């Protein structure tokens, strides 16, 4: 079977071939341990690690000494939130975050609740954005950490981290931002942003999986407790032998993002808008999340009266993901879409298209035609579509829930 067209760049991106080329020497002849101070193998690896650290820092306007290598955004988020909460636990035990956060954040917070912290999970508005008044009202004298994602993985909306950070700064609260989905998509300048900790992933930005970083601000200095011990690597923040090839990959991926993101984002925005203008001519199609305050790469659409998983089966020629329960291990539809106030039915009917570096105009045009055909076919099979056509308001029907 021909490989489906890839529209799932928010799940992961292919490693850019230029990144692969940069990594390979460090799996072959330059295999040294960057912690080896006694010979050229180690020196060579250490130099590569520090070059990469500079490239990661440069994309986000940080000092390279503020970058700590981790195994990915999930580990960065754990280190940031647990590390800051534990360091400040004598000062307070209240943490604040959003309902629409990634599970890496939500499950970390749940774990902290288990060991005695209290967490406020804020609702978002219908467009997916945080209402600042709601945040302000939630902050207390014993609040120590606020964690908010920069760009949402499902709906692509961009939170106003400047305004959120300012609220935290005024109160001496540590502010962590999950930026896994935003590097290379949104300009980030940590020299100006009021952010204390920021988590990064390599594989969402054309780097390798299993690699991430955490920004830990030096001025004003942010203190966190290490979560992984043994050897004192990364100035004690995160022990473990550094994976030189992975680090080089992340550095090269972030360097390319810095050089190319402006041009690339214009092109992707044009493609995304072309996709939306093609899909939105169909009846009863709804965009999830704010139209403007979102990254150009994301289009999350509900096709009413069609169930998401059966739609995904019908569009095997493209690789997308769905907010439908049936595509996940649980039977609950997307908690992110439900947090926007979308009905369960529209959450079940949602498809996330995420575009990226290798998406073409032909891919988009093919997808528009495919969706028109298949949504039409499934609606012909849908009793809900039939009722809608007959003018029945589905909200007034007495359903036998099961």
């Amino acid at each position, binding site marked *: 079977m021909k490989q489906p067209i890839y529209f799932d760049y928010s799940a992961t991106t292919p490693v850019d071939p230029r990144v692969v080329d940069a990594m390979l020497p460090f799996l072959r002849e330059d295999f040294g341990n960057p912690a080896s101070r006694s010979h050229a193998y180690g020196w060579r690896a250490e130099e590569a690690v520090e070059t990469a650290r500079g490239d990661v820092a440069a994309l986000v306007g940080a000092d390279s000494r503020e970058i700590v290598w981790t195994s990915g955004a999930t580990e960065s988020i754990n280190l940031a939130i647990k590390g800051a909460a534990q360091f400040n636990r004598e000062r307070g035990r209240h943490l604040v975050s959003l309902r629409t956060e990634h599970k890496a954040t939500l499950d970390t917070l749940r774990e902290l609740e288990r060991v005695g912290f209290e967490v406020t999970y804020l609702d978002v508005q219908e467009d997916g954005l945080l209402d600042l008044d709601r945040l302000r009202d939630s902050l207390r004298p014993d609040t120590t950490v606020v964690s908010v994602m920069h760009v949402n993985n499902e709906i692509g909306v961009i939170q106003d981290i400047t305004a959120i950070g300012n609220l935290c700064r005024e109160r001496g609260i540590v502010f962590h931002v999950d930026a896994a989905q935003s590097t290379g998509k949104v300009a980030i300048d940590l020299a100006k942003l009021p952010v204390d900790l920021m988590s990064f992933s390599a594989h969402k930005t054309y780097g390798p999986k299993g690699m991430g970083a955490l920004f830990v601000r030096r001025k004003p200095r942010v203190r966190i407790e290490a979560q992984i011990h043994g050897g004192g690597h990364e100035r004690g923040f995160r022990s473990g032998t550094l994976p030189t090839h992975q680090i080089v990959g992340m550095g090269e991926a972030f360097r390319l993002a810095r050089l190319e993101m402006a041009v690339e984002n214009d092109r992707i925005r044009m493609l995304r808008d072309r996709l939306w203008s093609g899909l939105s001519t169909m009846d009863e199609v709804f965009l999830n999340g704010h139209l403007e305050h979102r990254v150009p790469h994301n289009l999350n659409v509900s096709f009413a009266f069609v169930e998401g998983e059966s739609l995904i089966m019908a569009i095997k020629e493209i690789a997308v993901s769905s907010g439908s329960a049936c595509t996940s291990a649980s039977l609950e539809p997307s908690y992110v879409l439900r947090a926007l106030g979308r009905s369960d*039915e529209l959450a079940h009917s949602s498809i996330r298209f995420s575009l990226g570096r290798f998406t073409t105009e032909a891919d988009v045009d093919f997808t528009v035609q495919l969706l028109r055909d298949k949504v039409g076919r499934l609606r012909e099979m*849908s*009793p809900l*579509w039939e009722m809608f056509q007959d003018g029945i308001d589905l909200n007034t029907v007495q*359903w036998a829930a*099961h």
Partner: protein
Amino acid sequence: MAYSEKVIDHYENPRNVGAFGRDEAGVGTGMVGAPACGDVMKLQIKVDESGVITDARFKTYGCGSAIASSSLVTEWVKGKTLDQAMTIRNTEIAEELALPPVKIHCSILAEDAIKAAVEDYRHRLSASDQTA
């Protein structure tokens, strides 16, 4: 999720998609499930004077397994008496389609749809007997 060949076949070539007029003589309509749960099945049977199901139609909103389960039961009920149709069990549907455990509820829904359609037919029949 990996589907069995039978599910894919029913999904791609669903049998008996469509609708009879709800008020047509000899028609029973069952609608089960809820949009919030991600699946709604509408099953219709056409019954002759001797109480044998001669034809069936379905429309389903739901995942591939839900569509396949309802397509399958439209084939199975044809030629059966109402009582025979009422003996179709979800376990037989699940077995025939090799549904994974997480999809068993689709077969339960299909069984419920048969029962609802038969009950609707019987209800309408007794109502028309009383008015006759």
